[in-house]
């Protein structure tokens, strides 16, 4: 079908002007778009308020649909649980016996650890949980990795707070609206988290790749070798993440002194997310006239 030749809408001046103004608006609008894009690239939180406003509307819809989905998904699980419960019981008893021995050893070590820490005069900062909420949706068609949390500043969520799941670190709050917040997942290409290896304390950076995995890059200049199974936890450097939150486990060593790793927290399970206080929030500026 030939498109209607609406470039010359006839002899009506009005129609011609309308068409012309349409083109002017289109070109001017794309320039405005370019300016917006430049602004957003230079100052990413510039449009946080607009996004948060829309997220306020969409978050309840997402959590409602997710709730209905969970209810339906629980039915087959319930049936198979009922059948498998006997085997499960035997297995758990055996596990319990194994764990008892380990527990006794861990108790002894923990006692030693406590004593040594007191000896060192180490002061542990307790990081309190702000709120427990769910991740309800994400940017599934974009190359950036953001998720929406269904709790916001009314629940005490603030920009910069770390978010963790039951298994490990999920990310960091990027923008907080009244009742919803945007989370920068640790797999986002712009997320960098200081970590250390549990085995020997080697410092490294966990950098998101954008495809669901992480690159672990050694912070030392020396050649580091990453073995599959190496576990990395947060260091507490930078003051955002509390120390010793599990972050990732190495899958394999890669060229250029990097390790390919998978994060412990798998946010795609739509599990609970725990928002914590920033480990050491930036101190408020001193009032003028005071000397520290």
């Amino acid at each position, binding site marked *: 079908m030939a498109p209607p030749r609406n470039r010359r809408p006839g002899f009506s001046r009005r129609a011609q002007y309308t068409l012309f103004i349409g083109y002017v608006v289109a070109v001017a609008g794309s320039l405005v*778009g370019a300016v917006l894009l430049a602004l*957003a690239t230079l100052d990413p939180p510039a449009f946080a308020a607009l996004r948060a406003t829309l997220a306020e509307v969409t*978050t309840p819809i997402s959590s409602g649909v997710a709730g209905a*989905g969970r209810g339906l998904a629980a039915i087959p699980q319930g049936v198979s649980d009922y059948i498998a419960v006997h085997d499960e019981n035997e297995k758990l008893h055996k596990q319990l016996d194994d764990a008892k021995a380990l527990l006794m050893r861990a108790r002894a070590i923990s006692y030693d650890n406590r004593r040594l820490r007191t000896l060192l005069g180490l002061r542990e900062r307790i990081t309190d949980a702000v709120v427990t909420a769910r991740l309800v949706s994400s940017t*599934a068609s974009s*190359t950036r990795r953001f998720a929406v949390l269904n709790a916001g500043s009314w629940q005490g969520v603030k920009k910069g707070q770390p978010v963790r799941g039951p298994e490990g670190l999920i990310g960091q709050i990027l923008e907080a609206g009244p009742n919803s917040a945007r989370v920068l*997942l640790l797999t986002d*290409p712009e997320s960098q988290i200081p970590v250390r290896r549990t085995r020997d304390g080697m410092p490294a950076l966990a950098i998101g790749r954008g*495809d669901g995995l992480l690159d672990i890059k050694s912070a030392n200049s020396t050649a580091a070798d990453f073995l599959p199974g190496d576990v990395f936890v947060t260091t507490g450097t930078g003051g955002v993440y509390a120390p010793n939150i599990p972050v990732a486990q190495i899958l394999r060593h890669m060229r250029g002194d990097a390790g390919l790793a998978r994060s412990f927290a798998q946010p795609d399970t739509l599990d609970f997310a725990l928002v914590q206080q920033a480990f050491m929030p930036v101190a408020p500026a001193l009032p003028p006239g005071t000397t520290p």
Partner: protein
Amino acid sequence: MSAPLKGAYDDEPAIGWRKAVPAATIMLGSLITIWPMVASFPFLPPFGLLLLLGWRLARPGVLSIWAPLPLGFFDDLLSGQPMGSAVLLWQLCFIGIDLIDQRLVFRDFWQDWLIAAGSIAFCLIAGRLVATPLGAHVDTVLLLQIMVSVMLFPLAARLAVWLDRRRAVE
């Protein structure tokens, strides 16, 4: 279909209705991202863009030349791309398609599909370049995303045609 279709010489539908249906379907396409799942890589095609191209190519003249501005703005609020990227890229696609309209007046569906494929690839690749640092490992996934989106374009075009016909019945 029970209700009779309107012919070429019947009155056009009311202006509000004529503009509302395409805009609403495209906005619904952008709203797909609020479906409750947390993706660890970009696997959803950009439904907003697909439907926009579907409407533009299957039913030229329904959307004004400046229609991508508000629709792209709405998509930017939801998609996670930096604000203004869809506004700019979608509008550039529209201007490009308008230029092609002057050169290639009589087209068949395959040519429309080719134009849509070019537009989708342009929007996704340019969007990746502005949103994500160059070193990120998203290119393989992006290629898959482009292929899936291009394959889905006929569906979007069919949907636009079907809705347009329903609209004519009202």
